């Protein structure tokens, strides 16, 4: 089966899953114990305001009709109005999305680059003290809560050493002309190097703390995949004909060992979208994760539903892309 047909089939199979996701996200409002209107508006709201919100959210209609309305609008990218700000939910999410993507992508790149380097060197020095140390470190890496690590990094580098800013994306009052929404790119487009460095400094700690879990996973997978490949016949052949070991590793083995690594990078990238919720909260990073937490504490449920759906949808898309790349990279895998 060709790549295109495989992709179409995957997308087709996705339809029931996405419908299921919309049902679950829709039901979130109905999981609220008691009267959702009272929860959202508080008990001091006037009867007229309660009526208006009930009608706006369509809560006076039967359940299936409510779902259908929500679903049809959601398909068009319309998640209703924020209860708090009265602005369209979609607009608010889109304006926050670049900050989250910038953070998640940077963390992914950091994790991938260092993870592969460290993983390969661990495999290279298999069973040495160095190897055992790295394996242990990677286990510690998945066991540290990233919010705690973030706070500790902030304490060390911002409070004690004063090297890096405490929070936010850019220094107060800095005028970034938003073109792409990615500050690293926008500041460069602006030609303002000091502003670029400023945004890089802001990005450093959040990206580092977000990168720890994927970094540890990538180290572990790279190491074990590398060990697998190094026991293959063609590696032995290469050694037998006298190629230097270092060259075998980088020219022959790494290319084949990377296939599972790329899968893990992709899977971790999807998870980073959710991990960013914690990091953004620690560093007051103005992304979708922080918006989600704020909306939850404001009981702004249309906003919560919108963000949860968008993040889940992004997660699904990333996973499909990973599958396709995986299938493309490894010719042994048939597009089934």
């Amino acid at each position, binding site marked *: 089966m060709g790549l295109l047909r495989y992709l179409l089939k995957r997308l087709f199979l996705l339809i029931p899953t996405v419908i*299921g996701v919309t049902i679950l996200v829709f039901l979130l409002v109905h999981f609220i114990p008691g009267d959702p209107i009272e929860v959202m508006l508080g008990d001091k709201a006037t009867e007229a305001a309660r009526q208006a919100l009930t009608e706006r959210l369509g809560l006076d209609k039967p359940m299936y009709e409510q779902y259908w309305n929500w679903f049809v609008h959601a398909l068009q990218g319309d998640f209703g109005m924020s209860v708090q700000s009265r602005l369209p939910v979609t607009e608010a999410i889109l304006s926050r999305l670049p900050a989250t993507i910038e953070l998640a992508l940077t963390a992914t790149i950091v994790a991938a680059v260092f993870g592969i380097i460290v993983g390969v060197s661990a495999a290279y020095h298999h069973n040495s003290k160095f190897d055992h140390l790295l394996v242990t470190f990677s286990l510690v890496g998945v066991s540290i809560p990233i919010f705690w690590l973030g706070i500790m990094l902030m304490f060390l580098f911002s409070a004690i050493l004063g090297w890096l800013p405490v929070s936010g994306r850019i220094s107060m009052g800095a005028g970034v002309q938003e073109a792409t929404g990615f500050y690293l790119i926008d500041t460069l487009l602006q030609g303002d190097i000091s502003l670029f460095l400023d945004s890089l400094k802001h990005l450093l700690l959040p990206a580092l703390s977000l990168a720890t879990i994927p970094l540890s996973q990538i180290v572990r997978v790279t190491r074990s995949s590398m060990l697998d490949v190094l026991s293959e016949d063609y590696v032995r052949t290469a050694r037998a004909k006298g190629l230097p070991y270092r060259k075998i590793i980088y020219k022959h083995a790494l290319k084949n060992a990377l296939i599972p690594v790329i899968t893990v990078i992709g899977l971790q990238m999807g998870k980073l979208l959710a991990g960013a919720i914690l990091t953004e909260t620690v560093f007051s990073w103005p992304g979708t994760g922080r918006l989600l937490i704020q909306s939850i504490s404001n009981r702004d449920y249309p906003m919560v539903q919108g963000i949860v759906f968008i993040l*889940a949808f992004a997660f699904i898309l990333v996973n499909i892309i990973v599958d396709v790349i995986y299938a493309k990279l490894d010719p042994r895998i048939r597009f089934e």
Partner: protein
Amino acid sequence: MQSEFLQKLTIFRKNRLAMVALFVAILLVVLALFASFISPYDPVSTDLENKLLPGFWAGNWDHPLGTDNLGRDLLSRILHGGAISLRVGYMVIAVTAFFGTLLGIVSAYYGGVVDILIMRVIDVFLSFPPLLLALAIAASLGAGLENAMFAISLVYIPQMARVVRGSVLKVKTNSFIEASRALAGGNMWIMGRHILPNIFPSALVYLTLLLADAILYTASLGFLGIGIKPSTPEWGAMLSSGKEYLLMGQWWVTVFPGIMIVLAVLSFNLVGDGLREAFDSKLKR
């Protein structure tokens, strides 16, 4: 079967790191179980005259780990926090083990439409990043430990069901299943007597690693202040309330709960890893 199990336990016992981790894990469980007896103070009673006192490093042995922003004894709160994390962890495991195993076995054993239906629903749950799903459900249900437990369980039941389904599909092909059926063994008998014991090792490994994860997720929810009331002596919530004092130099409110989370999660992860190595011979170190 029995001797093979013991043999694998011996492999586990030779793994020094895993044994140390097991010791730490047991110690944490014991401390948590006896939290109310060991704790010098009430974990929730406030004492505003003694807030943010440093601990033993400043010679304060009345409050060895200091006090928090409301003057509550940090040691007592940390001990009770252990009890809360473990309670959530074990409840999540119990619920997940029961429903995950049930769904997984039924799905794989019966196959066909049942399998497709169950797996489709599971796919929906797996379409969410785990933290997001727990967060969304806990946010809707409101604050309360039971709600947090329920939300975290909903993340793991589908994962567990998938793992169990995979193992059952493998076990199902064995000829002893066919033999049992030939001897007129009923479905319930086969599932309970033949399939369940065979998937037990992989389920055990999975559940240990899951306990570590569940503790981490509980702390995350507590840190975000979702599904767990801020006054609850939960490690993540404690750490979150100490965050603003950290930058002013009162580090203990944030540092100690964090260390406890790392210790608990790491020790269960190491035990789980050790078990996996012992029980899954394909894995190499």
